[in-house]
């Protein structure tokens, strides 16, 4: 299935775009999406597990399953405030 991942801050900078589209197996998890995204963007991968993911507006661990209609976002370490 095709997942569009919204990219912010340094992740957007490395992607050169506001979002990237990735092809992952049906029923893939956030962890699998992470691996696929880090293969595509090794500079982002250098941040490792400090990069989090949100699914439908909530932080989601690597074991969380994805559906093709999820809203997925890549969340590099936040620095608001």
């Amino acid at each position, binding site marked *: 299935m095709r997942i569009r991942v919204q990219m912010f801050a340094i992740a957007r*900078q490395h992607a050169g775009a506001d979002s990237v589209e990735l092809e992952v197996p049906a029923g893939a998890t956030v962890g699998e999406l992470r691996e696929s995204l880090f293969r595509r963007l090794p500079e982002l991968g250098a941040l490792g*597990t400090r990069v989090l993911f949100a699914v439908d507006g909530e932080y989601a661990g690597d074991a969380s399953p994805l559906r093709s209609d999820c809203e997925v976002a890549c969340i590099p370490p*936040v620095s608001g*405030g």
Partner: protein
Amino acid sequence: MIELTREPIDTTALLQRIQSPAAGAVLLFLGTVREFTAGRQTARLEYEAYETMARSKMAELADAAVERWNLVGCAIVHRLGTLELGEASVAVAVSSAHRAASFAAGQWLIDTLKDVVPVWKREIWSDGSTEWVHPEKCPTGAPPPSLPESRA
């Protein structure tokens, strides 16, 4: 009152929103753009957010603080876009019957906001170079719980 704004934060309006005869204490915290960090000079900052999630996380934090400390009022505003030196990037305002609750809630809200709300800042240094700020946190890779202390 939860808000993301590209305009300067109106602290007077914010205080009016949370003041009440039910409150004996009001606390306002502002994060402001500091000129020097470890000897390096900042020219300005740029903030961006995952806006829908940032709003919902800010609302969750406010709800949790109101419940935990029995607050009378709670408002959080985060500014986005380009900020000049001295301007406020974030405002947390709370009111409560007694002052201990306002201090505790205010501190928890700003600490937790900095951990979980998806907002990012980019330093524009005075030498023209730029840098996304990514604090060294969450080394375990576990997603931060939405409400680290209040519902753990």
